[in-house]
């Protein structure tokens, strides 16, 4: 029983690792957005809404990872 609980905790921790690549991707997107604003500052509001949308979609993977971690912790513990 103790072993099963520990495995559930390890699984939840692994599920949250999806945030790693999401962080990389979002950082890259933000860097590109900064470059774009530097190149033509008058398109700032358009670039901002695109950045938010892209970052939000990229974040979805991390959110699903967190959802799986929550399900693991609260349902199988």
């Amino acid at each position, binding site marked *: 029983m103790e072993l099963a609980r520990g495995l559930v905790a390890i699984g939840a921790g692994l599920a949250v690792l999806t945030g790693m690549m999401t962080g990389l991707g979002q950082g890259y997107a933000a860097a590109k957005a900064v470059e774009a604003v530097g190149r033509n500052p008058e398109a700032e*509001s*358009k670039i901002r*809404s695109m950045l*938010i*949308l892209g970052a*939000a979609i990229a*974040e*979805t993977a991390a*959110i*699903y990872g*967190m*959802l799986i971690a929550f399900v693991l912790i609260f349902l199988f513990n």
Partner: protein
Amino acid sequence: MIVGATITFQVEVLSILIISAIILGLILAVNRAVKKADPLDQPKGILLLAVIYVRMMSGLAKDNMGNIVGRNYAPYLGILALYLALANLSGLFGMPAPTANFSVTLTLALITFIMIQRMSIKSIGFFGYIRSFFEPHPLFFLMNFFGKVAPLISMSIRLFGNITSGTIIMVLFYAFTGWVAALVPIIGVIDFVGPIVAPVLHFYFDVFVGLIQMYIFISLTSVFIGNEYSQPE
């Protein structure tokens, strides 16, 4: 009524009521200021803030959804932004943040979801909407279905997860500082380490994350609704 269901009182209900009362008071105050104001005069005080806020929100709505649709949805975005900002910041005042409860964020995301579907049906027609599930081939039904439902899940869990993780981290942090403080013999009964280190973390987890999530929620709402509108053919 479902047999065996129990009604549990959730503390977030209280903070929702308090936040609603604050928003109602604000709106009444602005309403009185508007009625008393001279239209030829420069707006001052609370009226100036209200004018700036309304202009900001309608600007955001018009940027993302176009002039005609943006005007219709700007009031909803405005009140949503106010509510979310107050709800996310309420952790600072010792109230449990309503957005740390999944029911609240699911309800808010459901409103957005229904608005997206309504806008979609309005722009491509009911049969076009049904047909959009089976494009480009009937086999894609499952993918299209999950594509339509995904915003509901991801928006609700994004808000819930960000606020909840902040709350959990703050609880863990206070437990840790309490443990550290208890190592000091006499004054250790009170947690004197927490108040020294906590403000920075409170600033990040409550103020920064809360306001960023508020902005993301309203701009995602407007962008999703605007996307449905901008492809009528």
